[in-house]
C-alpha cells in the first residue's frame, strides 16, 4: 500500500503533553511500527485513553494537546485541517471503543452501520457493500451473515457486538487501529474471542495496533511492545515479553505482581456444618415479547444444588449468561425460585415471607458488582454502613458509631464516615460496600463479581482484603466471578456453571490441574493467568541482570 519503506514507524508520538490548565499527560513519546501491536498499559486515570483519542483529535471538550507532535507515516497530524483529519478517521486509522453496548447505534441495523464507512470513504455501490459486509461477517464466523445484516445490536451479546464493531472498522482496511480497552466489559471467554478476531483481521491487512488496556494478561499473550504509563508519564517501555518478565520499574513490578498467578491452592477447609444448602433450584424469567401471549419463559437455573459450609469460600465461575448472578440472588432470597429448596441452618427459608427473613438477612450479606450503583448516592459512608445495623438488637448511638468506624477501619477506610460515595474511587466504594456487609458479623457473604470493575492492582488489594477479613471474622463466602484466574487464590472449592447448570465442582487445585468438563477447559485457557516466573518473585536478580 504505502510507497515508503517500512523503516518509518506508522505512528510516532513525540513529546506529547495533553491537558487543560494542568497536564494530564506529560512528555510521552513512543513509536508503533508497521504491523506491530503496541500495548499502552496503565490504570484508570493514567491518561492512556487521552493519548489514544488525541491521535484522531477526539479529545473531550476543554482538554487539548499542549505540546509535542503526532506523526503518522512520518507526517505531522497537528498541521492537518479538521476535514483532513476526518478523512483519516475510519479510512486510514480505525478506532474501537470500550463499551460495545453503546458504541453501536441501537436504532440502526448492523448492515446500515457496517455500510456507513464503506460508503463514506470508498464510495462503493450498495451491491458491492453488501457482498463485502457478508464476506467480512463470514470471516469472523458470524452464523447466518445475511440475517445478521438485518438484525439490530440488542440482538447480540456484548462480545458479539464488539466483534461486529471490529469487523466494520476493519472493512476499510485501515493501517492503524486504535483499540481502547476493547475487552474490558466482557467475560473472559468473549475477551479471548474478541482479541483473537482482532489479531486475525489486523494480521491479514498488516494493520498496526495501538492496544489501550489495563490488563497485563492480554499484553503478555498478544502484544509485541508495551509502554507503561503512570499518572501521565511513561515509566517503562520495551518489548511486551521483556516488560512483563523483567520489569525494571517498581510500578511495573507492582502491576505484574497484581496479575493472578497460579500458585498452590488454598488448603481445603475442614469439613464443618453446612450453613446454606440449596437443592434442585429452578428459576425462569419471563422474556420480554411484543405481546403478553407470545412471552416465553426462559429458564435460567436448571436444578442447581449447592452447599456452603461455615468458613468456606466457594467460587461460582461461568461466562455471562451462565446464571451465576441469578444463583447468588436466589440463594439470598432476592429472587424467588420456581422449584427447589433453600435451607439455612436446617430451616427451610425458600418460601418464607420477607418479614420473617430478618435473622436470615442479617446472617447472609451481599456485595454487588458495581460499586457505583450499589451505594445510595445521597447517603454518607457512615450512614450507609450504619444502616446495616438497623435490625440488630437495639444499639446505642455511640456503640453503633463505634462499630461503623471499626468496620471502616477494618476495610482500610478509617475516618471516611463523612464522605459521599461520589467522592470515593471505585476501589474505595467497593471497600465501603464490603464494610456494610461485614459490620453486622454475617455468617455468609455472597460477593457478586466484586472485583470485575476494578483496576488490576486494586483487584488484588480487594481480594487480599477479602481474604484477611475472612480469616479474622470466619464468615463463609460465595464468590461469583467470570474469571477462574481471579478466584484461584481465595477459593477452597470451585463450582463451574454453564447455561444454568453446574457442570463441574471440586477443590480449587483439582479444577486447575485436572479439569473434567470441556467448558472448564475453555475457561481455563481464556484466563489471563501467568505461570509463576521465578524472575519476578526475586526482583533484585532482575536489576543486576538488566544492568548487565
Amino acid at each position, binding site marked *: 500500500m504505502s510507497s515508503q519503506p517500512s523503516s518509518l514507524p506508522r505512528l510516532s508520538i513525540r513529546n506529547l503533553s495533553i491537558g487543560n490548565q494542568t497536564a494530564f499527560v506529560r512528555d510521552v513519546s513512543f513509536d508503533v511500527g508497521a504491523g506491530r501491536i503496541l500495548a499502552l498499559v496503565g490504570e484508570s486515570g493514567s491518561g492512556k485513553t487521552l493519548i489514544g483519542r488525541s491521535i484522531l483529535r477526539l479529545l473531550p471538550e476543554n482538554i487539548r494537546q499542549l505540546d509535542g507532535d503526532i506523526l503518522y507515516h512520518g507526517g505531522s497530524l497537528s498541521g492537518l485541517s479538521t476535514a483532513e483529519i476526518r478523512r483519516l478517521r475510519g479510512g486510514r486509522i480505525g478506532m474501537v471503543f470500550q463499551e460495545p453496548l453503546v458504541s453501536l447505534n441501537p436504532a440502526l441495523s448492523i448492515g446500515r452501520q457496517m455500510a456507513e464507512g464503506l460508503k463514506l470513504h470508498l464510495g462503493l455501490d450498495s451491491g458491492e457493500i453488501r457482498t463485502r459486509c457478508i464476506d467480512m461477517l463470514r470471516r469472523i464466523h458470524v452464523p447466518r451473515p445475511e440475517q445478521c445484516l438485518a438484525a439490530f445490536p440488542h440482538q447480540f451479546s456484548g462480545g458479539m457486538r464488539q466483534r461486529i464493531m471490529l469487523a466494520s472498522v476493519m472493512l476499510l482496511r485501515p493501517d492503524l487501529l486504535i483499540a481502547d480497552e476493547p475487552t474490558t466489559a466482557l467475560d473472559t471467554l468473549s475477551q479471548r474471542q474478541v482479541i483473537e478476531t482482532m489479531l486475525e483481521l489486523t494480521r491479514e491487512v498488516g494493520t498496526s495496533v495501538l492496544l489501550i488496556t489495563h490488563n497485563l494478561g492480554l499484553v503478555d499473550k498478544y502484544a509485541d511492545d508495551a509502554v507503561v504509563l503512570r499518572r501521565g508519564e511513561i515509566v517503562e517501555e520495551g518489548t511486551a515479553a521483556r516488560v512483563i518478565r523483567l520489569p525494571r520499574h517498581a510500578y511495573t513490578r507492582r502491576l505484574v505482581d497484581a496479575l493472578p498467578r497460579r500458585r498452590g491452592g488454598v488448603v481445603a477447609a475442614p469439613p464443618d456444618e453446612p450453613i446454606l444448602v440449596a437443592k434442585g433450584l429452578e428459576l425462569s424469567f419471563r422474556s420480554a415479547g411484543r405481546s403478553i401471549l407470545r412471552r416465553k419463559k426462559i429458564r435460567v437455573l436448571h436444578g442447581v444444588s449447592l452447599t456452603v459450609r461455615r468458613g468456606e469460600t466457594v467460587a461460582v465461575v461461568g461466562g455471562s449468561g451462565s446464571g451465576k448472578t441469578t444463583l447468588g*440472588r436466589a440463594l439470598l432470597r432476592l429472587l424467588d425460585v420456581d422449584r427447589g429448596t433453600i435451607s439455612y441452618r436446617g430451616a427451610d427459608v425458600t418460601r418464607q415471607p420477607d418479614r420473617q427473613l*430478618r435473622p436470615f*438477612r442479617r446472617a447472609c450479606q451481599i456485595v454487588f458488582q458495581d460499586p457505583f450503583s*450499589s451505594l*445510595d448516592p445521597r447517603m454518607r459512608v457512615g450512614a450507609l454502613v450504619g444502616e446495616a445495623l438497623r435490625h440488630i438488637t437495639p444499639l446505642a448511638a455511640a456503640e453503633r458509631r463505634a462499630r461503623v468506624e471499626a468496620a471502616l477501619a477494618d476495610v482500610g477506610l478509617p475516618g471516611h464516615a463523612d464522605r459521599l460515595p*461520589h467522592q470515593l474511587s471505585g476501589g474505595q466504594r467497593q471497600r465501603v460496600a464490603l464494610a456494610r456487609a461485614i459490620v453486622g458479623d454475617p455468617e455468609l457473604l455472597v460477593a457478586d463479581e466484586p472485583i470485575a470493575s476494578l483496576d488490576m492492582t486494586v483487584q488484588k488489594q480487594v481480594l487480599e482484603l477479602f481474604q484477611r477479613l475472612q480469616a479474622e471474622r470466619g464468615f463463609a463466602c460465595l464468590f461469583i466471578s467470570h474469571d477462574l484466574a481471579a478466584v484461584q487464590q481465595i477459593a477452597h472449592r470451585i463450582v463451574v456453571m454453564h447455561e444454568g447448570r453446574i457442570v463441574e465442582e471440586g477443590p480449587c487445585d483439582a479444577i486447575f490441574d485436572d479439569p473434567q468438563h470441556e467448558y472448564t477447559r475453555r475457561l481455563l485457557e481464556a484466563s489471563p493467568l501467568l505461570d509463576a516466573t521465578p524472575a519476578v518473585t526475586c526482583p533484585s536478580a532482575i536489576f543486576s541482570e538488566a544492568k548487565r
Partner: protein
Amino acid sequence: MSARPNSRSRIRLLAGGLLASAVLTMSVLAIFWTPLDPNRLDVLHRLNAPDVRNLFGTDEFGRDVLSRVMVGATTSLSVAMLTVIVAIAVGSTIGFLTGFFRGWTDRVVMILNDTLLAFPGILLALGLVAVTGPHAYATVLALAVAFTPKVMRVVRGTVLSLREREYIEASRAMGNGPLYTLARHIVPNAVAPIAVLATSMFGWAILMESALSFLGLGVPPPAATWGNMLATARPYLTSAPWLSVIPGILIATTLLSVNLLGDSLRDWLDPRM
C-alpha cells in the same frame, strides 16, 4: 471541572432570586397597602396613560393599574402556589406508591391516569370550573386536577428506574421493609426531578390561571388577577397598550425567575455538585 458552569449557576441563582423576591415582595405588600384603592372607579380618568398619579396608567373604569397589578400578584401567585402544592402532594404520593409496589393497582391507576392525560389540561380545568362555577378555590382545584396526572407520570417513571438500582436491592438484602426502603432510599433520590417539575409547573399554573380568567372562568371580577386583567385589556390593545403590556411583563418576569430558580435548585440538589 472548570469554574465556568459554577459561576453561571451562581448568576442564575442571583438573577432568579432577585426577580422572584421583587414579585413576592410586591404581592405581600399588596395585602397591606396599595398606592390607591384597586377597585375604586374614577370615570373622569378612564384609560389614562401612565403619569405621576397613576404610574402604570388607569383601565377602562379609571381604576389604578399599579394597584390592581399588585393585588393581582397576590391572587395569581397564591393560586399558582396552592395548585402546585396540591398537585405535587397528591401526584407524587400516588406515583411513589404505585411505582414502587407495581401490581394490579399500578396498572389500573396508570390506565386512569393516561385517560386523564389524554385530555388537554385546559379542557379538564374548563370542564371542572363549568361545574363548580368561577371561584379562586375552584381554579386551584381545576388546575390541580389538570396537573396531577403529569406529576404521577414523572414520579412513577423516576421510581421505576430507581427501584432497579442495586442499592435498593442492597436495602432489601439488609432486611429493611419496603416502606422504609421507599422513604429512605427512593424518595430522597427522587426529590431533584420533582423539585424541577414543581418549578416549571408553577409557571404553567400562572399561565393557565391567566388563560382561564381570560375565558371568564378564572377568579371572577372585580377581584384582579394578572389573567383577568389581560382578558379585559383586549379591546384596548391599540388605544391603551399599557393595560396588556404591564400584566404581560409581570407574568413573563415571574416565569423567568421561577425557571431560573428551578435550574439552580436542580444543581443544588445534585450531591455531585
